[in-house]
Each structure stands twice: as structure tokens, then as C-alpha cells.
């Protein structure tokens, strides 16, 4: 795949961020840095994106296009900062009728020790600890 986004290292450095569709579970790599992953073509199949080993500067987004669940899971676990939790294992867009249009993001903290999680959509996020 093109690594323009990875080379530039972020979304906003590029007018169009690198968008990559996945229809099956995928282990995200450091080389994917800056990518917006989506589930276009997955239909109702659930997809788990497993994050790479934490390192400063990593940033990914995840967009729901098809009506399947998207889970973003830490490889190590217990290092995702999200709703009332500084040690979550995963976040997911899995609520019925709220999958399409969901958009979540994760960014490593400056120390490379935590995944800071956020969302850009008004869809429910399910947290697993």
C-alpha cells in the first residue's frame, strides 16, 4: 500500500489522509502510522484491529462504513485511556444502529506508554478492561 500518510506521519499533514479498508481482523503496524482504517466491504463482519507495540508518535483512526462492529485492541493490554479508565484493553463500536458513521482515534502519549483514545462521532463506545 502507499505509505504517504506514514511518511508524513499524521493526518493533517496530508490534505487527504491515507485511507485503508479492512474486511478481516488486522494487526496494525507502526508503518501504518497516520492511517484511517475503515471496514468498507466487510458488510456485517466484525473486525478487530490490534494495535502495534506502543511508541511515541503513533496515531490511527477507525471509521465505520459498513454495519459491522469495529474493535480496537491494545496488543499489550491495560494501556488505553478512555472512559473512566486508564487501563482499558479495547474500545469498540459495536452498538446496534450506531456502527455506521462511527469514528474513533487512538494516539500514543508523548512518553509512548499509553494509548489516548477519542472519538469524532456521536456513537456509543464500548470499553473493555
Amino acid at each position, binding site marked *: 500500500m502507499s505509505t504517504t500518510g506514514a511518511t508524513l506521519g499524521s493526518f*493533517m499533514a496530508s490534505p487527504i489522509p491515507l485511507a485503508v479498508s479492512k474486511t478481516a481482523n488486522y494487526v496494525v503496524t507502526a508503518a501504518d502510522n497516520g492511517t484511517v482504517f475503515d471496514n468498507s466491504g466487510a458488510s456485517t463482519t466484525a473486525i478487530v484491529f490490534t494495535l502495534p507495540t506502543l511508541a*511515541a508518535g503513533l496515531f490511527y483512526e477507525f471509521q465505520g462504513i459498513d454495519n459491522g462492529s469495529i474493535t480496537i485492541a491494545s496488543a499489550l493490554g491495560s494501556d488505553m*485511556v*478512555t472512559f*473512566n479508565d486508564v487501563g482499558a484493553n479495547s474500545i469498540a463500536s459495536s452498538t446496534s444502529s450506531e456502527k455506521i458513521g462511527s469514528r474513533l482515534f487512538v494516539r500514543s502519549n508523548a512518553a509512548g506508554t499509553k494509548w489516548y*483514545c477519542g472519538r*469524532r462521532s456521536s456513537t456509543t*463506545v464500548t470499553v473493555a478492561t
Partner: protein
Amino acid sequence: MATTGATLGSFGDSPIPLEVAQTANYQVLVTDNGTLFTNTGAGAAVVFTLPALAAGLVFEFLVTAAQSVTIASTAGTDMVFQGNAGRSSLAFSTASEKIGGRLRVQANAAGTKWLCSNLSAGANAASGNRVTAA
């Protein structure tokens, strides 16, 4: 402090956004532009007071310690958030909904309003981590 984020003008332009923890009340500066503030290590509530409005300013605030975090406008009544264009402050202060609270405030192009977005990956579909507006 380093102003890489400010120079680059946004969070995304920098591979690593400037991240700064504050454990006590803090007056945000224009030179902090582009900073992601956290309350890592805080043992009490923290109030971030925004600088005077000016086009091009953008800040984010992330709660990592279970303490209230308030983002307040200096002038007041100029924060646009969820159906109200005249808020004076926004806070993550609801019990069990503080950690993970993430708010982005960005000046509008005219430099007359703070455009505020709740980026929290919270459990509530509509609100994420609950924001208390004043």
C-alpha cells in the same frame, strides 16, 4: 517550553503533539498553541483558563487523573458547545466520567468564539464523558 505544536499550528501536523501535564490551575498562553494538556499527577481539580481569543488558536484537554478539569474562557460567554453559543466554561466533573474526558477548543476564523468539541471516547452515545457547561 518548546513551541513545536504552536509553530506547526495543529495537533495533527506534528507526529507527536506537544503534551503538557498541569497539576494545578493554569493560565493557558498563546504560546501554548497546539498543546494537548493533561492533568496527569493531579491530586485536585484543575482549572485551565484560556487566553484571549485570537484566530488560529487550538488546544486540547485530556483527563488522565480522576479529578475535575474545567476549561474556562477569560472573557466568558464565547464558547460554542452543544446548542449554546455563549458558554463561559466547560468541565469534566461528573463522578466516574472524568478519566478519558477529552475536549478540543479552537478559535473560529474571526477570533470571536471558541468552537468546542467533546472528543471523549465515553460510554454515552450523545455526550461521551459528560461535560458540565456553565
